[in-house]
């Protein structure tokens, strides 16, 4: 009885006191906090109750015992799962491809069959040999064409490869200006620029 009374007072306090407080007081808890505190008060009440509860007789049969164990398990795990489901949730979002960063997406594109860079180029040993090895392309790109930065050069190599043909290779690389979206070009460049 006293327990119920104490619980009532605490819960009333949780819900009534903020009515008299302004946000500016810096002490006014919003409704989700009030709900949480109410839950905690309920839990506190349960603990006090359990501390005083009379001893429980041994179960009459093994199946009853097992039912008791199963019940404790279900209430415990079910309770926690429920709590996790009423807590704030973010939405499922984005597959890995969308969520990865530029260089990483670029690397995936580089080794993608539909794009096909790796058919002619190799990076760290994997890929083809019809085009130059690109393992350290970011380092060499800056000095290929005088007055052209590494990024400009790499962009040009993708968009119009024939404007500079690396000896002794043939001029066989197709221009990718029409084949890739600007985002894909950006990702590929980000990847190439990391190959130092």
């Amino acid at each position, binding site marked *: 009885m006293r327990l119920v009374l104490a619980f009532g007072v605490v819960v009333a306090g949780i819900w009534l006191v903020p009515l008299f407080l302004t946000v500016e007081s810096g002490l006014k808890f919003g409704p989700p*906090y009030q709900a949480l505190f109410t839950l905690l008060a309920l839990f506190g009440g349960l603990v006090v109750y359990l501390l005083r509860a009379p001893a429980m007789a041994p*179960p009459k049969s*093994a199946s009853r015992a097992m039912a008791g164990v199963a019940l404790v*398990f279900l209430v415990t795990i079910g309770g*926690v*799962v429920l709590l996790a489901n009423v807590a*704030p949730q973010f939405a499922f*979002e984005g597959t*890995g491809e969308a969520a990865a960063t530029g260089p990483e997406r670029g690397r995936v594109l580089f080794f993608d069959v539909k794009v096909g860079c790796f058919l002619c180029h190799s990076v760290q040993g994997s890929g083809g040999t019809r085009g130059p090895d690109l393992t350290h392309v970011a380092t060499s790109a800056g000095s290929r064409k005088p007055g052209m930065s590494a990024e400009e050069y790499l962009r040009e190599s993708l968009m119009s490869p024939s404007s500079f043909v690396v000896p002794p290779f043939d001029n066989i690389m197709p221009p990718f200006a029409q084949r890739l979206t600007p985002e894909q070009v950006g990702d590929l460049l980000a990847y190439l620029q990391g190959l130092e």
Partner: protein
Amino acid sequence: MPPEVSLINDRVVIWVVAQLHLLFAAFVLGAPIFIVVSEYLGMRSGDGRYERLARETMKIVAMSYSLTALFGGAMTFVLVAKYQQLSNFLFQRFYPVFGTYAILLVVETALMYLYWYSWDALAKHKGVHIGIGVALNAVGTVVMFLMNGVGSFMLTPPPSPESASLWQMVNNATWTGLNLHRFVANIAFGGFMVALFAAFMFLTSREERDRAFYDWMGYIGNFIGVGALILLPVAGYIYTKEIFAYNATISTLLMADKLAWFFVIQGVLVGLLFLGAMYYMWLSIQRVQGGVRFHSYFRGAFWVALAGFVVWLVPQNFLPSLTAEPSGPISEVTIPERVIFLGFMPAKGLAVSAMVVITAFVYLLYRQAISTGTMVWGQIDTKAQLALTFLPGLAVFTMAFMGPIREMARGEWHIFEFMADTTQASFLTPLGFTAIMAGLNTTLFFLLMAAVFWLGFKVSHQG
């Protein structure tokens, strides 16, 4: 699940098999540590109960061992079939580690069966038998450390993983932390599983003698579980420190962004474990003659623990992520200004420390009460046995819930900032869904364990 991904996808499948593998592995690695200690204590003290505890627990370990291997095999299968890019890379780069692992696994299995089947044969040579047990533990621990090397590498790889040396990859930024944390957690886990087994046997035994024994066994299981549990926050602290030192993006994701609320739920779980353990001790002390004089201390301890629990759980806000838009006024879903300190680390640290210290205090009181009063084993409030099932249930769930947090800390990466997870079902799973998965895995594990207990101890005894 997003509409384009089916409910039973590669991600969910690997999640279940990997989790079950890890839960059984935790048990078969953690339990033998105190099984050997218990056997040793039995030899030294001549108290037959220690020997029986060691033996019965080892029987469960032997039975669970094949389940561990089964799920380990299933996990490898799914990895190779569905996560080729990742498994190729890992198997190639860690080839010597996996090779050693395979050899040691054979050695461990041999030692395990040797230890178990030579129990009677070596009854006269206890020293030799215990020696085998110690070797079993040593090999088991190395096996775990090897796989922790691969697991921790995925979250905190050294710079340029393609060219790093094997040792740099294994001894990465969080290897030590993970080793320490898992080692302690396995002992806690094993202890609570022993408690569960003892409660199961206590509740289903008719014989007075058996009840007395299983009551005692539950007490020891809880004793081990709580002892390790008290150390666990320290190990967890070291581990998270290592993660945070490695990369600030990960710490933001964990502490301020999408996974922040996961840690509120983790607080609920760990808090309940501490409170549950205290409650068992409270019930257990009732039957000690002269235990009454400890009551007021216990009550006080509960109040301190509850206060710590409340402070631990007050969140900084009720927003699911750093960028989430609140639906109402922002002041309603964030912590009020004057008490903002309650949401920060120092307050949380203090709250956790208070709970740890108070549990340790109760633990010592309880030991004191038991050593000074007379204890009648076998006559205990049934609620205490139910508490002993509550604790393992929570402990397993906590593990099944924190594992995914560790996995998701990598964000969209298989190997952090090196190999992206480009599979279709790659995303952070929301809190509710994650908890449902953890609940599912916990239930599966319990059903399998109940089957092991039942087959090993009820069916075989009737025959």
